[in-house]
């Protein structure tokens, strides 16, 4: 691992939602600040900066990661996915996002990006989760608006829809 100078800014390069990006970061710059203010990907939000609220959750090399507890220089060369990369096209929503809209699974929407990222990664690993498993996953996120149930319903419905689509493509 290269030794970085605290006084200098360093170029950090990684893949964000399928595209190469680069920016300048001091060694202490948080990944959350770097994504938002250097790269301009403001969809990832910051709620507590101590790893509890989950709003800043992003996918780093397939691992759910709190961007507020990760340094920007740590993601050099990584593949990162954020909420901006979930929809299949600019004017469309993913299956999960559409389920959130149908179920009113968001109100202010501030915590939503992190929840979507967690569910996106989770549903890939567990395509047919129980409600308890979904609630357990969601316990890593704080939402103050919805009371959570609409989120649980949206997640379960999206999981079913994704399974159906998977089944169809498998039989196609």
């Amino acid at each position, binding site marked *: 691992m290269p030794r970085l100078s605290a006084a200098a800014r360093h170029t950090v390069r990684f893949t964000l939602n399928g595209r190469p990006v680069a920016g300048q970061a*001091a060694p*202490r*710059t948080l990944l959350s600040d770097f994504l*938002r203010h250097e790269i301009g*990907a*403001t*969809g*990832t*939000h*910051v*709620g*507590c*900066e*101590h790893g*509890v*609220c989950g*709003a800043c959750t992003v996918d780093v090399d397939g691992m759910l990661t709190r961007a507020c507890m990760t340094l920007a220089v740590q993601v050099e060369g990584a593949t990162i996915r*954020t*909420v*901006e990369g*979930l*929809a299949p096209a600019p004017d469309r*929503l993913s299956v999960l*996002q559409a389920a*959130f*809209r*149908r*179920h*009113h699974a*968001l*109100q*202010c*929407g*501030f*915590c*939503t*990006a992190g929840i*979507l990222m967690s569910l996106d990664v989770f549903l890939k690993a567990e395509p047919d989760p129980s409600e308890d498993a*979904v*609630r*357990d996953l*969601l*316990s*890593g*996120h*704080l*939402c*103050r*608006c*919805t*009371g*959570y*149930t*609409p*989120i*649980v319903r949206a997640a379960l419905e999206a999981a079913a829809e994704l399974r159906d689509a998977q089944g169809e493509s498998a039989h196609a």
Partner: protein
Amino acid sequence: MLDTPHDKAGGWVGRAIERVEDAALLTGGGRYLDDLGVKPGTLHMAILRAPHAHADILSIDTTAAKALPGVAAVLTGADVAGLTTSLVVGVKAPVECWPMAVDRVRFVGEPVALVVAEDRYVAEDALDLIDVAYEMRPAVVDPLAAMDEGAPLLHDGFPRNIASDRSFRYGDPETAFAEAAHRIAISVRYPRNSCTPIETYGLVAEYDPHEDAYDVLANFQGPFSIHAVISRALKVPGNRLRLRTPRDSGGSFGIKQGIFPYIVLGAVAARVSGRPVKWIEDRLEHLMASVSATNRATTLTAAVTADGRITALDWDQVEDCGAHLRAPEPATLYRMHGNLTGAYDIRNLTVRNRVVVTNKCPTGLNRGFGGPQVYLALERLVQRIAVELGLDPLEVIRRNLVPADAFPYRTASGALLDSGDYQKTLEAGLQAGDLAELLARRETARAEGRIYGIGYAAVVEPSVSNMGYIATVLTPAERHKAGPKNGAQATATIAIDPVGSVTVHVASVPQGQGHRTVLSQVVADVLGLKPSDIRVNAEMDTAKDAWSIASGNYASRFAAAVAGAAKLAADRIATRLARVAAAQLNVPTEDVMFSGGKIAARSNPANAVPFSRVAALSHWSPAQLPEGVAPTIRETVFWTPPELTAADEGDHINSSLCHGFIFDFCGIEIDRDTGAIRIDRYVTAHDCGTILHPGMVDGQIRGGFAHALGAALLEEYAYGADGSFLTGTFADYLVPTAMEVPEPVIVHTETPSPFTPLGAKGVGEGNCMSTPACLANAVADALGISDVRLPLAPSAVAELIHGAEPPAPAGARAAPAPAPSGKGERLMRGEGKARIAAAPEAVWAMLLDPDTLAAIIPGAHDVRKVSDTKFTADVTLGIGPVKGRYKAQVTLSDLDPPKAVTLSGKVDGNLGFGGGSGRITLNPDGAGGTELSYTYEAFVGGKVASVGGRLLDGAAKVIIGQFFAALARKAGGGAAEDGGLVSRLLARLSSLLGRGAP
């Protein structure tokens, strides 16, 4: 999909359509304050905050901070005071309220200095370089103790810390109490908590010196009466304070009203630095110093007939507003003033309201706003009446509810309950929630020896507050002098552009509720369009928009007032368009209808013109408008309900326009071992008038329920007795997660309000009022207790079941749990032993030698000997997530060379302060070495106590253990036996591995 019980044929209102807001929010396209770009050259603000709850500021040295490269300005309270005037205080008293401490700090987290720098990182670096000297004062955190003779005084202008003391009398309470068969009383404490939106405060401020004008973008939520407070503090007329809000807000629940002192700070910082200044609050700042709900101590007494009818209430409320009485406080106490009889028909009332200040964060708006405090007392009392009279609590509720034929009903203290059928809503709830089955479940559970209880609560949920209720804190004579204040002005503007498309603007400042969607439904219905045809803008700009003091997002006023104003504006436009169309269609105006994007003749729908064509006429050919028809380009409605009059000479006040009704009941089971509460079923039956969007109404109910559940079971802004703030992270201030919040059974009945244009009432706050009381009643029922204290965390409930945990048995190696000290800081005690391979005399000499101490004190940089028994040191310590630099002073006393010595010391740094003392005893071990034993007592306060609370004991043990281990090493071998966590863990691990203790 959502239930749509109100599928109103033909119209958009009442349907749970998908929200227009959501696509952007779901794809990362939100426009929250911190997502918006700033001008090049914008500076960033950071705030130094008080580590002490009560202390005089002796000096502030900002030299080093100002010298740090990248720092543009450093301001202290004196600098801010020099450019502003004090914020207004809500009562008549010679008291000032500054956004930054001047001369004295009064709560942990109070701003003491601010830095503006090129980025937030540098600004925070500079905070560490500011040197503040404090002289501690005793603090007071309990509102009742604050009124004691001799209690520490916060403000000279508030004798005995009482900011206001008013008594009220309605009806004939004396006779009612004299004639009552029973007199039943209850004392309750409502704790401090907050709805903690996930987005914190944020602002960007600019100053134009040529026009002496400020431009501030902030995630402020209103009420915009505060605009006048800010401009007054900044010493400019209102037209020189442009206050804007971003499109999206990450939640508020009242809390973002409390950003206004920071708007003053940001504005001053921009003025001094000559550059735009941005500030984003961090979570620790938010938890300790944004704003909190009031905590309240209430004694409520009822006069009750033999059959359970309540004939009079006697309220004694002591409201704790924290360190400063910031606008609009003491509004929390008076918001419910017309509703102190709740949902009950009680004609006689006495009230004593005292407002006190304590060394805690100032209070402000928070979802429920006074309702949770009132109903915890009132609904607990109703449960007590049932218990004491041997009645079913439900029966006591039924016997006292306002009768269905009594509406509109004027309460004893002046509220006009607009509409309702409480009995019908109650029965609907009982039926849908199947109370009979729940009672059977309780029966079964109890028969099996399990702890099960059922609670009820019936509440009136006020919405659309009367700006005049706050004036009830003043006497009629003071009110007369201050001038009239009443009403609830709502505004809405509808504009039509040259191609005939429709835009709506409101000053409702949504915080996630979906105002834009609902307004598009309301206006679409009037104009015969689709919601997707209507564009709604709810951003706020005080320089350009129609607004008034009641604008903003509070008191659940959107559906009732703002959506109603939008309907009225659409009606006005439609009336004029109908006349334009009538001329073109050649039919009478009465025959014109708006439908399907067309304006048509009702009698012959084929006779139609496109809406947009008629709508655009005012732009393209105003001369063609029929005689006497004003242009249809823009219409603004200002609506205020006439029912919201000012308080009268007898202090009767219609404190709110609308009154929804909620009846809740629940079954809970308590785990006998852990004290954990499991909600078996929660039923909440609402009547919020006409439902505009069922999905959003249920969303408000679920969200309010989750907040209330947190307030009842988990959340409390905890303070040590010295005012130390102990819950500075989301690991300490516990917010409910998906694991804790069950889905409530939601039941609706609809009694439209006769006072609002759409018949709607507020719905967002009701469960914050009903649910804490309902859960408390269930716990009272389950455990058969009368004194229920929130929050009902498992440890507190376990104590109710098993009694207080006894102290650890003598001789136990583990240190006892942290206990509050006499002064109330977090106090830690411990003891340990070390064996050192040097004689006591040699060890003694080492303990008195600065070089040795420098080598063995963990993290010490610079140990200096001041005298033979006094040392100073710079120490870097990490406790939990907080690593910081401290100045330490160590004193040796009770010297008994070479046998024993007492080491006492204190440390002070930007991250907190601490102190303690330890007795060290040296005994020869018979082999030329020394057996050293020690006991210590230490306390910690400030930021480190706020965020590291649960780690402190372990950290202290480790650090002290390190000290003696290093002493032993330095002396040439031996080992510390710290009795601490590590060795216990090792022992545990070894025994698990079957190897026995090491």
